[in-house]
């Protein structure tokens, strides 16, 4: 188990290093900062001095190492718009985003998993078909359309809830519902197929043939095995807690990380974009790491298995 954990940790670190390298490469490829900041008609000596001052004349790999060092010490540059450190700008938006994504995650888990399990246990029943129809609808209706439809009904027509902005809990209702419904549908569909897969296995037939009550077959044999693939998608949902609300935050003018990112992209505020990118990648990698370790706990068969055999 220790070796398993260590190899997963090494992989997570490697992936993060790749993300940082990606950010660095994109930064290099997007143009010479000296030209952009100094302008094209600056005297060559001034440009040269600027390049020396910022280390832009050094070989690429030295710049790369320097960039790595800066990222590791939390120095992610300053926002071009208000000159504040990008990291601070991003971090102060995180609680706002979590305020809608955490309740939405609760809805996804609380509705999606039971609905999926129920549908699988009552295959081809009316409830199963209803769950599947809703799940397909949840997948095919984009979140911005769903959000705007909810606004049209509950804010414009009925006037029950505000259409956007923040301040009170009432402002959070529509964003949370928009995020939660779509995710619950995806999760229900996934749980159902994981559960069906397990219910078709010979050991389920064996267990019920030897006289174990169906209730126990489901709770002892089927659910733990169906939990293994389901953990992956839940891990993915946890990993996107910070980034998963980009579109919905924009629909409802919710002042979270996602909206900050969209504004930063529109203004080409590169330091902020980069900071969000790294933060999101770090969350995803952490979530994936936890999922991998949970896999090891849930399924002893995977502990020694090489990467790739488990899917991923």
């Amino acid at each position: 188990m220790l070796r398993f954990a260590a190899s997963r940790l090494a992989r997570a670190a490697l992936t993060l290093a790749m993300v940082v390298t990606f950010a660095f490469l994109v930064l290099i490829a997007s143009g010479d900062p000296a030209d952009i900041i100094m302008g094209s008609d600056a005297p060559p000596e001034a440009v040269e001095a600027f390049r020396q001052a910022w280390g832009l004349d050094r070989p690429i790999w030295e710049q790369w190492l320097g960039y790595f060092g800066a990222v590791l010490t939390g120095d992610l540059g300053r926002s071009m718009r208000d000159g504040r450190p990008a990291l601070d700008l991003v971090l102060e938006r995180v609680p706002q985003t979590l305020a809608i994504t955490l309740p939405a995650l609760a809805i996804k888990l609380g509705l999606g998993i039971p609905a999926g399990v129920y549908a699988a246990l009552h295959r081809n029943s009316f409830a199963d078909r209803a769950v599947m129809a809703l799940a397909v609808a949840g997948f095919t209706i984009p979140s911005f359309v769903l959000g705007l439809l909810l606004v049209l009904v509950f804010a414009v027509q009925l006037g029950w809830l505000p259409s956007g902005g923040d301040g009170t809990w009432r402002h959070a209702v529509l964003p949370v519902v928009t995020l939660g419904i779509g995710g619950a549908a995806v999760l229900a569909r996934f749980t159902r197929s994981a559960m069906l897969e397990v219910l078709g296995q010979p050991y389920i037939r064996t267990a019920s043939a030897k006289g174990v009550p169906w209730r126990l077959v489901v709770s002892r044999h089927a659910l733990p095995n169906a939990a293994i693939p389901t953990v992956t998608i839940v891990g993915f949902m946890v990993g996107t807690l910070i980034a998963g609300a980009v579109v919905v935050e924009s629909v409802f003018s919710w002042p979270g990380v996602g909206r900050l990112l969209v504004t930063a992209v529109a203004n080409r505020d590169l330091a902020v974009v980069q900071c969000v990118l790294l933060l999101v990648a770090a969350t995803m990698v952490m979530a994936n790491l936890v999922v991998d370790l949970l896999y090891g706990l849930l399924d002893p068969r995977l502990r020694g298995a090489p990467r790739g055999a488990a899917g991923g």
Partner: protein
Amino acid sequence: MPEAPLAAAAPVAAPPQTRQERPSPLVLLGLCWVALMLLVAVFGDFLQPFPYTQMDLRNRLSPPVGFGGTWLHPLGTDELGRDVLSRLIASVRTSLVIAFGATVVGAVLGTTLGFLAAHFRGIVEQAVLALVDFSASIPFLILALAVLAFFGNSMGLFVLLLGLHAWERYARIARGLAISASAQGYAGAVRQLGASPWRVYGRHILPNIASTLIVSMTLAFPEVILLESGLSFLGLGVQPPDTSLGNMVGYGREYLTRAPWILLAPACVIVLTTLSVSLIGDWLRDRLDPTLR
């Protein structure tokens, strides 16, 4: 039963299930809708009642037929008096062309990398797998936003960027299937006969795994449409004066209270199209792909 060979190829241990031999009515409806969209995309120029940028200032915010509007503008007009139906037709074409382009780019790229990994193994394979890990570590929307921020936006870049979506899925499938195909007799046999790797992969392995890849493409296609419309909705995808479905929704949002039809028409088209393609994809998967069941 005409489909018997496929059904018989399924493992014996699989639970008995009612495999659908014919497309259900829903799938047929989906096929009709997709056919209609394809016709609209191909013949859009002849179908548009007006050029999609033409303004008609005397008929601004005119509602659709049935809500007090006239047949002059069957789906109404926007705040500049531009015909919503014409804009919708132009948008369908843009969105479908982008989604097709991006899906093909993703499939070609992913399959090629998957084959390379399967053929060379060793360090090449590790590198491809590391790239797969990398793209799984960032939600694609965030990656796309970052690239757009750094490089700005143009149509070509946008299609290439969306093509990167789901490449890792094809890579994983192609690698896995190519490795198992190499272990089967036929690939070894043609290799023994002196076929080049190009021939082995292109003429023998690719046709054998094509159905799985086509199913993945059908399943990825609606996701690409949703991504494109999401980015365009945010104002970061297709730029005016070009128009796409997401673009129209984002634009119509400002007239949500006064003229909801500007937004509802493209929203319906997005939902119906993704729904139809998903239904067809699921049906194809059940029909064609014994490995996924």
